[in-house]
């Protein structure tokens, strides 16, 4: 794969995303195109990842899981950023749209994050010999996921949609604030204990495939959020309409 390929793919994907967001009439088909494109890129990723790229220096073929493992965690963080943006927007101006976006991005983010960490965990077993280790990256990612699992659980326990929207927007902001703090404090904590982390320098072909993976999962991230958002909006429909001006006929009154 030429080294400019991921960048080119990124430009195409971002272009389509912008199109979807900017032009309402394109919303019926852009996501389909993106799904198709993403699937193709995934097939390519399988080929390039499994056959084209050389085996990783230390971990040989098991190391190829990195092409999914790392992009997943990146997508997760991207989704959480969308989530906090939606939460802020909701607090500035109440809107069911931003609430639905907050819900869907958090859920999709947790999906990507959990899968990514799980893959890391599966990866760790053959290479480190354990399922888990006290590595700063693992800890901070897990804590980040816990913040959002709590957020989602909280959402599902609150019945009143308006209170839920306001409260969870606040929870989302407080949660997101904790991410960089967790990240740095955990890194600090561990580096002061002189422990090694798992990352090393990467070969160029590996890096190219790895970015390719990131772009292909970006398309899926977008499609998942859009679809999940549509479900959330559909659930809100009853919430959006005003009651009829006149009482419906034939209603029993006590």
């Amino acid at each position, binding site marked *: 794969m030429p080294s400019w390929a991921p960048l080119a793919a990124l430009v195409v994907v971002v272009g389509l995303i912008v199109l979807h967001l900017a032009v309402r009439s394109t919303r019926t088909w852009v996501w389909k195109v993106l799904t198709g494109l993403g699937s193709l890129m995934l097939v390519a990723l399988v080929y390039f990842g499994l056959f084209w790229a050389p085996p990783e220096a230390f971990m040989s073929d098991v190391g190829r899981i990195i092409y999914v493992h790392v992009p997943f965690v990146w997508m997760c963080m991207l989704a959480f950023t969308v989530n906090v943006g939606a939460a802020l927007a909701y607090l500035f101006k109440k809107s069911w749209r931003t609430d639905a976006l907050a819900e869907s991005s958090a859920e999709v983010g947790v999906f990507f994050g959990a899968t990514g960490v799980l893959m890391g965990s599966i990866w760790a077993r053959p290479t480190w010999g354990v399922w888990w280790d006290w590595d700063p990256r693992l800890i901070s990612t897990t804590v980040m996921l816990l913040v959002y699992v709590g957020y989602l659980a909280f959402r599902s326990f609150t019945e009143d949609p308006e209170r839920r929207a306001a409260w969870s927007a606040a929870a989302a902001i407080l949660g997101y604030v904790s991410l960089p703090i967790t990240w740095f404090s955990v890194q600090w904590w561990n580096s002061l204990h002189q422990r090694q982390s798992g990352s090393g320098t990467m070969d160029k072909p590996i890096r190219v495939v790895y970015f390719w993976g990131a772009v292909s999962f970006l398309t899926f991230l977008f499609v998942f959020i859009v679809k999940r958002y549509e479900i959330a909006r559909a659930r809100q429909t*009853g*919430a959006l309409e005003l*009651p009829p001006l006149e009482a419906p006929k034939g209603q029993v*009154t006590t």
Partner: protein
Amino acid sequence: MQSQPPAIEIDDISKRFGSRWAVSRLSFTLPAGRSLLLTGHNGSGKTTLLRMIATATFPTAGKISIFGHETREKRELLRHDVALLSHASYLYEDLTAAQNLTLLARFLGVDDSKKQVAELLERIGLTERADSPVRQFSAGMRKRLSIARLLMKAPKLALFDEPFGELDPAGILQMENLLKELQGKGVTIVLATHLIEQGQSLTQERLHLDQGRKETP
């Protein structure tokens, strides 16, 4: 002199709980200086409407203006002038009657809080029980204390949600006199009650709700 804004202006409000509309497309104007009787069967939305007027909650759609100020925007301003006597008493169970009132007086910035608390307790007939925690009060005693809270605030708009409930005959009489007295002082009154005759003798306007909609009774 400029024409006064209406005391309450309800502009096509609706209030939803979950998927159920407690108040639907309600519009109503209460002119300044008049008082309102709010009636309706159980669950028709009286309490919900009063809570919205008191800025305790806000309409899902539509607007309410009190003395010309929109409730959502001007809530901080309005809360100085609107008081609500509700099903919920807003009392701290572990504080005594006197402490509950003193607390309110301090937050209101009342100067001679001690004197005023004593006067109010006298008025509602709880002087003897001033130092009992509210947890030990009977239903009627709690109601009386809530009335004292409302009086302490000296509002321009006073909302009463079933004020006669739980009061003994002497208390009901006192309540009626209080409502008249407040109106005499120029306080706007909204009274939600199921005792329609009593209510009508105390108010000038009437709003009857049926499943959250305005109805002619």
